[in-house]
């Protein structure tokens, strides 16, 4: 048997210790499992809330934006918003929960060592489970509305989810680390989420904008690229490849910044939290 040897020295190297995170994958699973269990304990409808929330919002947006404001998205409006809302749900609850995750786990952080990155990552996995449940309802809605779906769904859906996951993880991890040091960010978060929501093509379509600069600016919100990929097999229209590229670069930028900042501040978590 290989002898484990732990060397403890002042912080310096910026190693990501991926092997260590992998070694602790069971803990990641247990954290996510705990969050899901706790989230729906003592609720009557349980995990059904994961589909009810986007469903109710879809109803509101249908009335406000489609019926009253006559917004056009180039396809069935309810299907469009519902699809958009569940991807938004993954993105937003991923960010919100992971940004709060370190603070709410402060007890554990002060008492035991494990790769800290598992905490925000598990929050994201929890959001992913909710997304998958809601996704089942999306399939039902697609059938009910008789929505044609092109074959590109095979690659475009997974790509959309991956892009959302990366962006959400990057922003979430960055905010989680910032929250430990500066509690200001938890008050900033609701406004940031509003900004992100209205800059995402969930209730409208970016294709309806004529100004190129505005379109490209909006794609800096990584969710817009993901949504573009997500809508593509449903819309049977053109796809904005440049937009997806901008979103991908933006997502990777957040991921790298988030991870670097997290790594840099990680050593002080237990002292600050």
């Amino acid at each position, binding site marked *: 048997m290989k002898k484990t040897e732990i060397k*403890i*020295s*002042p912080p310096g190297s910026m190693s990501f210790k991926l092997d260590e995170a992998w070694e602790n994958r069971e803990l990641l699973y*247990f954290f996510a499992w705990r969050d899901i269990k706790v989230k729906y304990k003592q609720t009557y409808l349980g995990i059904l809330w994961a589909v009810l929330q986007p469903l109710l919002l879809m109803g509101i947006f249908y009335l406000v934006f489609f019926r009253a404001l006559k917004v056009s998205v180039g396809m069935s409006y309810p299907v469009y918003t519902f699809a958009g809302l569940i991807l938004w749900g993954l993105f937003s609850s991923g960010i919100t929960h992971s940004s709060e995750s370190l603070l709410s786990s402060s007890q554990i952080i*002060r008492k035991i060592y494990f790769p800290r990155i598992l905490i925000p990552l598990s929050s994201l996995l929890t959001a992913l489970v909710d997304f998958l449940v809601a996704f089942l309802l999306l399939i039902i809605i697609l059938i009910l509305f008789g929505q044609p779906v092109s074959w590109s769904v095979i690659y475009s859906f997974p790509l959309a989810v991956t892009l959302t996951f990366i962006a959400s993880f990057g922003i979430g991890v960055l905010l989680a680390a910032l929250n430990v040091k500066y509690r200001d960010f938890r008050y900033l978060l609701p406004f940031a989420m509003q900004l992100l929501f209205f800059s995402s093509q969930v209730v409208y379509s970016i294709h309806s904008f004529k100004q190129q600069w505005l379109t490209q600016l909006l794609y800096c919100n990584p969710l817009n690229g993901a949504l573009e990929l997500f809508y593509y097999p449903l819309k049977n229209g053109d796809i904005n490849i440049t937009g997806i590229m901008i979103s991908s670069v933006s997502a990777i930028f957040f991921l790298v910044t988030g991870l670097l900042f997290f790594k840099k501040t990680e050593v002080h978590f237990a002292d600050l939290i």
Partner: protein
Amino acid sequence: MKPVIEINQLGKKYRIRKTEPYLSFRDTITDSVKNIFRKKTENKKDFWALQDINISIGAGERVGIIGRNGAGKSTLLKILSRITWPTTGHAIIRGRLSSLLEVGTGFHPELTGRENIYLNGSILGLKKTEIDKQFDAIVDFSGVETFLDTPLKHYSSGMQLRLAFAVAAHLEPEVLLIDEVLAVGDMEFQKKCMGKMEEVSRQHGRTILFVSHNLKAINDICSRAVWMDNGKIKIDDTVNTVTTKYIESLHTGNTKITRPATQLTGAININDISILDAHHENKNIFTPGEKIGIAISLSNLSWTKNFSVGLALNTLSKGRILTDTIQLPAMDISSSIKKMIAWLPAEYLTPNTYIIDISVMNDNSGILDIVTDAAGFEIAITNTKFENLEYDYGVFSKELVWEPVA
């Protein structure tokens, strides 16, 4: 063979800030703006919680760490547990490590006992298959099998603790770090846990590093002890040598107080102070409720009319908590040494470290002699009544009369 725990020149510096422990973004911004215009403001103070720590622990050794509050014991354990990082030096740990800075870390009140065993075990570094294998033993040990599928929030605090201990007792590390955890829980269960830990360390040659205020537990479990004081190692020796010296240090007044003759006023001097139990035996560590007496010997160089002896009881955290004086009749030079015992209201004192000041005054309240920090004793936590370490029980423990008023 290489040592299992090797600590080299380890140091940890904390920066004490004027403001809250966490920053607001505004502070950082305003500070950096200020710093552009003026030289760096010195509103930060450095504090070394640990300095020059060198310890080498071989396989199978059981080492206890003792010292007063704030001596750096917990910081050392936190660094070895990798919860916080050292500022200088390094440490190497060879072997699978478990650290118990707390029992029941990560317990969630909404989850059932069964679920919490898995969650807690996993947080403590067990693999799922290992928990599966040990599950029955853990449940057996805890004695909560009937409530296994009840949410933890419906458990009594005692049951939660037993469950937490049961998981901790079934860890099978090669190196085990323990902090204070044995100071909680009911006595009987505590003994069971200590027994289990001793068994584990003796049979399997596990290395244990154990921090505690409970000198008895240290004596029972460890073979070697390290006494830490002000972030440094004071003595590193066999457990008997170290605990004896540690107790002596709390008990500085036991030896005769000798002063240069010039300091003696010629009236009355305090010669000797010691702490006694009910049988007039010297003792420093008591259990709650045990009788505690302070023996004071006085000597005089000349005849003195009326005088009084004062005693003050202090704790480190609360300061002076009790004083009393007694008027004494004239003391003749012929009866050169006068001895008396003051019995403390020990039945009302909560577990804590107490320090005694003794003074002698003349009838005008002028001080003839005074010895501060004359002696110290400890009331150990051995009672379920005081098991919650997070709670401040105060100094006095007395049941009150609660009268309902219509």
